[in-house]
């Protein structure tokens, strides 16, 4: 089990984000996205102040947090590799690319390596379907991807 530490000065930073979004209509998702940008994930302690400020129930906010694939409830690994699993990439071998990376890192999709350094994630289309298979490494997009390319990019990031 991962132990998620409460970020420093949670209340102050959340308060600032909330006040920056006062004028936004239907702000819940936008605020959660801003919190994730700030902390890298949405800390559990953020739910109560967000619910209070937006006049929603705790359950409403929790419902939004758990609906969207992008929103995380724990910090991500230092490096995130996302491999497109959609059809155009499948047609160019994304399934075997995923298997190679899984074997290399000894993890499945959605898991993090034992040293906590790298997370492997599925993504469904990056809009790079003409240059498939497509991946992102720490947010940067690559086309015509291979296992070698991913490892090289990760090496460059170290």
């Amino acid at each position, binding site marked *: 089990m991962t132990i998620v530490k409460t970020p420093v000065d949670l209340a102050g930073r959340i308060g600032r984000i909330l006040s920056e979004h006062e004028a936004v209509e*239907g702000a819940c998702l936008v605020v959660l996205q801003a919190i994730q940008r700030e902390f890298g994930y949405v800390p559990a302690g953020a739910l109560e102040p967000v619910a209070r400020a937006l006049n929603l129930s705790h359950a409403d906010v929790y419902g*939004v947090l758990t609906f969207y694939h992008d*929103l995380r409830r724990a910090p991500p690994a230092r490096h995130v590799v996302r491999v497109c699993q959609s*059809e*155009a990439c499948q047609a160019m071998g994304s399934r075997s690319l995923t298997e190679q990376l899984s074997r290399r890192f000894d993890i499945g999709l959605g898991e993090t390596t034992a040293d906590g350094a790298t997370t492997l994630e599925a993504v*469904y289309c990056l809009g790079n379907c*003409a240059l498939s298979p497509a991946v992102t490494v720490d947010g940067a997009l690559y*086309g015509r991807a291979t296992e070698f390319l991913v490892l090289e990019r990760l090496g460059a990031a170290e």
Partner: protein
Amino acid sequence: MKSETFFVSSDSASVSVGADDLVRAITAEAARRGIEPRIVRTGSRGLYFLEPMFELETQEGRFGFQPEGTMAECVTEMFDIGVEARTCLGLMDDLPWLHKQERLTFERCGIVDPRSINDYRFHGGFLGLERALGMAPEDIVAAVTESGLRGRGGAGFPAGVKWSTVRGAPGDVKYVCCNADEGDSGTFADRMLMEGDPFLLIEGMIIAGLAVGAGKGFIYIRSEYPAAIQMMRQAIETARIAGWLGGDIRESGKAFDIEIREGAGAYVCGEETAMLESLEGKRGMVRAKPPLPALEGLFGRPTVVNNVLTLAAVPMIVARGAAFYRNYGMGHSRGTQPFQLAGCIRNGGLVEKAFGTTLRTLIEDFGGGTATGRPLKAVQVGGPLGGYIPEHLLDLPADYEALAEAGFMLGHGGLVVFDDRADMLEQARFAMEFCAIESCGKCTPCRLGAQRGVEVIDRVAAGVEPAKNLALLDDLCTLMKDGSLCALGGLTPMPVRTALYHFPGDFERAAAQGDIRWA
């Protein structure tokens, strides 16, 4: 060589295979020669199979270069002998791939600097809006209706009808929502347009606002497109400063503003009502219709919901007239469609053609066949909910009616090619799996049915009572089709059934071998 102008795409797909490295190579070689080159970062021409590439401006026009081997070698040779270089592709405008297209929506993409509003104006931008500012709103709606423009998001609903409903709806607060949640595999036209010609979308949205009486617009862009989000944000800011957007557009007394909202990785938010829920900050759960969004949409107000390509077609219709646009296409499919060639195809990219061209023309003439040179097995048209079309049906015209009649759909115009190594049982299974992952959970046929679908296909693959399980799968498909609230559950049977119907061999083989890969 005197100071030269180069064009290199800054489109994220071009950059994903090295366009930025190419800029560095040009800059470095020029510096060695004591030259300061002018490098314009354009959007993409849609010739992704040639990327990374660059263009050199000459008196005759722009010549393309496609580096083979190292970029440095190619750049050196180009500086030495110019268009005589081996890597020169010739004049861009003469490339058959571009030459044979009918580019209306994408006429500027890859040519102009997407960050420059002056470049946009210089190339015919804002002519439609200028006209629209002087028109009665009902005349704008009439022009869009007459043009025959249909929603490019998939269902193909006539845009003019939708606009006129919103226009006639009671209430002073109305919205225009641009659905830029293009999540279908094999599609990238929205992304290309937003990255390569962002002011066009802005112009289209303002015209929509003027036509229906809306003062505010939202663009809901998927988070998988960070470069498009950034480009649109920048373009909105620029347009505001230049007075094309905001409280008093070009001193006309008319107001319209646009806000960008980012998606959060949920495919179902491409469904218009789920997108509205998401824009309201809630879970992206599909709403039952009626009420139509045109009457009760965002925050309960009358709302135009259109896709990127629909809105981007509007400025041209207003600027050049409805008849101009109508003259392209056939039957009830008017105008042009940006087709996207993807997957296992030699020349992947964007081809804008009038409706009526055949799938074979797109895949063989433009696409050059499969990337591997192996026989083509299937083409999935219309995204993850679209059918798998076998080789012998490629002569179907690529338009709404012809495809629907044959049991397929055009969707967002994406064509994903598979060669003979594809296993259609595996593809059918993926369709169900994808539906299970992305289901919003509101209705049972989709939420549970997709999960059951995966299990039933796994049983077929394992050789467990295959005939019985295939009958069960068929029954499940009927239930999902008839009982689902939205297209996600309702259309997932299409890829499954077309895989089964056109490629029964893959299912029989797996069943006979009792292949238990997923057991």
